[in-house]
């Protein structure tokens, strides 16, 4: 097991509310590590609607999901948060010293006196196609993401999907693999037009194949895929022999391991009080879409408010002997120092 990384606060989820926790905790000098299964910050804003306008962020008459994420990242940069992306927070346990230990599925071990769960609508997970028996091959020769490109070198690869992930990986892996076939149900792609053009050029050059149809069956042995059966409109059922299969059918949110943390749940949400936003376990807080209390609205601005109150109690837990002063960022030179905006410091 790897050595535990010690910090003040571990935040599960790097959506908008997860990110703003860093700011409120940072003002109180508390350092944060964040874990997210996605490969970048922003949660739903970045994954589901990066281009869509949001109209109810105070003082921003209109801002897109991606822009909001970028602004939050800029706002929290002075506090140097540490991100652990592409990792699922999978196990939580209480240590003898009263601290919490969080493990991820990539074997990162974190330890802190305070945990903030900002898991939103749950962990983003790949949608799995209803191909009978596919589970047997998962993680061995069938994958839903690429962690290492090398793992596909010299393989006969089939990629399924029509969005950016499918097209980007087709283009990136094509030079490495022995053969490549892209399978999509329509001859029309949602991915960026530039990627689609590049893909079509490779097909025209005979460097990869494009098959329009639905994958219905998988055959193979001991987790090693040998062929996929595709139902096509014009050629009937065809078999594609392959040694690796990558499926990109989009993502969906599932509560996931947080459900096993031993916290009280209310219809897949975590009940909290509305003074500190603490869960049934002292030292574990829940902020943003994942929490539940009477009157809760799943809005970004609710999460921002919750973060400010949570931070107060987090401070008291971490520094029981210290007195907490209430200060404004406008007038406190102490806070301005932390934000790196104090003139005297800059000189």
């Amino acid at each position, binding site marked *: 097991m790897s050595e535990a990384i010690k910090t003040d606060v571990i935040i599960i989820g790097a959506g908008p509310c997860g990110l703003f926790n860093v700011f409120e905790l940072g003002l109180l000098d508390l350092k944060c590590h964040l874990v997210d299964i996605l490969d970048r910050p922003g949660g739903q804003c970045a994954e*589901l609607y990066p281009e869509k306008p949001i109209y109810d962020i105070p003082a921003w008459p209109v801002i897109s999901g991606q822009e909001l994420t970028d602004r939050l990242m800029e706002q929290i940069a002075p506090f140097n948060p540490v991100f652990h992306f592409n990792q699922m927070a999978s196990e939580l346990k209480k240590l003898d010293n009263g601290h919490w230990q969080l493990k991820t599925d990539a074997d990162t071990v974190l330890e802190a006196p305070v945990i903030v769960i900002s898991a939103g609508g749950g962990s983003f997970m790949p*949608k799995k*196609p*209803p191909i009978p028996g596919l589970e047997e091959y998962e993680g061995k020769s069938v994958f839903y993401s690429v962690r290492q490109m090398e793992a596909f070198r010299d393989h006969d690869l089939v990629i399924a999907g029509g969005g950016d992930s499918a097209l980007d990986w087709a283009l990136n892996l094509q030079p490495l693999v022995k053969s490549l076939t892209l399978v999509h*149900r329509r001859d029309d792609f*949602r991915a960026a037009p530039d990627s689609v053009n590049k893909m079509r050029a490779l097909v025209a050059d005979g460097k990869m194949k494009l098959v329009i149809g639905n994958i219905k069956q998988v055959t193979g042995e001991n987790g090693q895929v040998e062929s996929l059966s595709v139902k096509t409109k014009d050629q009937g059922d065809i078999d594609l022999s392959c040694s690796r299969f990558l499926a990109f059918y*989009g993502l969906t*949110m599932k509560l996931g391991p947080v459900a096993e943390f031993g916290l009280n749940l209310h219809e897949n949400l975590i009940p909290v009080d509305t003074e500190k936003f603490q869960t049934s376990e002292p030292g574990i807080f829940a902020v943003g879409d994942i929490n539940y209390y009477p009157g809760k609205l799943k809005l970004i601005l609710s999460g921002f408010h919750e973060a400010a109150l949570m931070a107060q109690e987090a401070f008291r837990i971490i520094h029981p002997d210290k007195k907490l002063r209430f200060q404004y960022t406008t007038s406190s030179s102490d806070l301005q120092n932390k934000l790196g905006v104090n003139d005297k410091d800059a000189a």
Partner: protein
Amino acid sequence: MQINVTDQNGKRHELEAIEGWQIMEIIRDYGLPIKAECGGSCCCATCHVYVTGDWLDKLYPMRDDEDDMLDETFDREDNSRLSCQLIMSEELDGIELTLSDGARP
């Protein structure tokens, strides 16, 4: 005004409908099993329904983004629509819909 929704277990429900609401919202408000993860923004396809018979022709034609999203589902049929893209109106009074398996929460 009313819509008729058959759930994933084959049980038919008659729902009072409100003009101008997304049909997804009516189904969700009634408590039937519909995930509607993106809250009606045409970016999740977890509000996928099948439209019975002639009702299909009475609907507003599908936009490209709905077509693309439906392609992400595994159980698309010729009568598939996203219920968040269907707005309740008088012409749809009595429409018959079936919830898809992929809409299960």
